């Protein structure tokens, strides 16, 4: 579980994060969204005990923050971190990198060897295991860094931009892996710019810009549908004209061969509007409710924030 209460961090008087209060229950995935410099990495570092909070408190994997060196070590033993840059040693092979970090996390002997082999094979890095890390492709490096973060079976995972700079196939692979960690019941804090990634992977989404502008499940953040998207087989302009005359239609915009309508009450007015379209000779191919996408929620929150 990750819990933050009024968590703030300033650098030389300049706030990086301010008053963050949120809770990620055990086994859930939370995506932190925010523009560059919003404080996502600072949040991760504070929650991992690498930075001392300027104010507020937090609790991660049963460890209270701010933490002493000993409590910090206990917290870090239960947490895995994927940094934005892979951060492995270029001159060491992939396997040597994993063995080094595995030992620092307290793994040894057969458990370490089998764990390293299991993950290298699973992420299709086994063939390259003895090549110097510096010669690997970006996608391979990112996958190795991900292995390093999970090798010691942490309860909590902090993933900072896990798919940044990866090609679509590589990004997909990493996302599938994160989904698997989620199914395994790990608590995950995922920092990302990728809204569809957040929507697909997260139980909770936080929109961050120094302050937490919004926090909740993706569904709760998206506003209830306020309109309809109707796809027609040709001639939407004639139908649009008639619909605009209806009192329940607040707005009617034409997009190609479709119409985007904003209604007074979507649930109540949809059947009547569809009947009207058919009555006017429109051939309806599809009708779906339209609400704010997570992208719209995010953009609005960031735009409306006075900071």
């Amino acid at each position: 579980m990750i819990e933050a209460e009024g968590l703030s961090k300033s650098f030389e008087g300049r706030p990086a994060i301010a008053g963050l209060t949120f809770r990620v229950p055990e086994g859930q995935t939370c995506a932190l969204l925010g523009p560059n410099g919003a404080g996502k990495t600072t949040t991760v570092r504070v929650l991992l005990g690498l930075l001392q909070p300027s104010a507020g408190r937090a609790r991660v994997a049963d460890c209270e923050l701010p933490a002493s060196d000993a409590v910090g070590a206990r917290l870090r033993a239960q947490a895995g971190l994927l940094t934005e840059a892979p951060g492995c040693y270029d001159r060491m092979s992939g396997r040597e990198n994993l063995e080094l970090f595995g030992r620092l996390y307290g793994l040894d002997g057969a458990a370490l060897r089998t764990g390293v082999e299991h993950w290298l094979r699973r992420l299709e890095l086994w063939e390259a295991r003895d090549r110097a890390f510096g010669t690997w492709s970006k996608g391979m490096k990112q996958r190795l860094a991900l292995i390093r973060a999970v090798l010691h079976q942490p309860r909590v995972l902090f993933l900072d931009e896990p798919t940044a700079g990866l090609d679509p196939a590589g990004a997909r692979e990493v996302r599938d892996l994160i989904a698997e960690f989620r199914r395994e019941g790990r608590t995950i804090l995922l920092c990302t710019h990728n809204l569809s990634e957040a929507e697909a992977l997260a139980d909770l989404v936080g929109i961050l810009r120094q302050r937490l502008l919004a926090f909740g499940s993706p569904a709760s953040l998206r506003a209830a549908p306020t309109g309809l998207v109707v796809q027609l087989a040709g001639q939407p302009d004639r139908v649009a004209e008639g619909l605009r005359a209806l009192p329940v239609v607040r707005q009617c915009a034409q997009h190609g061969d479709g119409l985007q309508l904003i209604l007074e009450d979507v649930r109540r007015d949809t059947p009547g509007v569809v009947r009207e379209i058919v009555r006017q000779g429109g051939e309806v191919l599809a009708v779906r409710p339209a609400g704010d996408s997570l992208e719209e929620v995010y953009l609005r929150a960031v735009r409306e924030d006075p900071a």
Partner: protein
Amino acid sequence: MNRAVLGLFLRKELRDVRSNRQLWPAYLLLPAVAVGLPVLLLGLLPLLADPVQAARDPGIAILIESVSHDAGLSGATLAERIARLVLRDFGMFYLLIGVVLASSAAALALVREKEQRTLEPILATPLRDRDLLLAKLVAAVVPALVVAWGSLLAGSLAGALAGRWRTGAWILPTAGNWVAWLLLAPALASVAALIALRASARFTDVPGATQFTGLVVVPLALVLVVLLGRPAMASPAVGGLGALGVSLLALALFAGNLRRFRREEILTRWR
């Protein structure tokens, strides 16, 4: 103290030295000088012990005068006394090897991790501050001492052979030499490495840390080497006391480094 972690970092640093050819010159040049220079100086012995040359060269005259009055030098002939002086004073060079190599390695210890962006993953492991600092210190000092002690064994052997060739006598290291090399050298190397390690934590670029070490740490350590090395070479008791004092200084510096060690500062501070 986590011995496994110490071994881990030591192996990592050794691997780095082995695979980084830029570091090789420092690790090869100093031992080469340690072996070659005493042989060269003893090769010049007939010139240095020649009264005719002393009459022409005031430097040689001063050398002959000083060996005549140095009670710590025994020897049947003037040449033998000069040879003993050369080898005794050259012994300080082995102290210097440890200081230079240990401080150079320590200067890179943290800042290179920052540059490679490996520091944050290291700091994110359960490693305690004390273990990390100790591991970095050991990884800097041990290879430096291995090179220094290897050089002194080879250099002492070469010096003994060259002394035998030029004077007919075996000129072997004194008890003072051994005390200085075995006790004072690790203490001096540790002090230099601890100051360089502190600089490494504060700097964000490798050139800055190495320049600071080259311009500030090494000259300061050199002063200590000269101040303590010569008396230590002359007297084992002085050498032992000097080693104890420098070891205490190293302990105090380690405690100070540990107290000032802030993961936050290392991750976010820009100089």
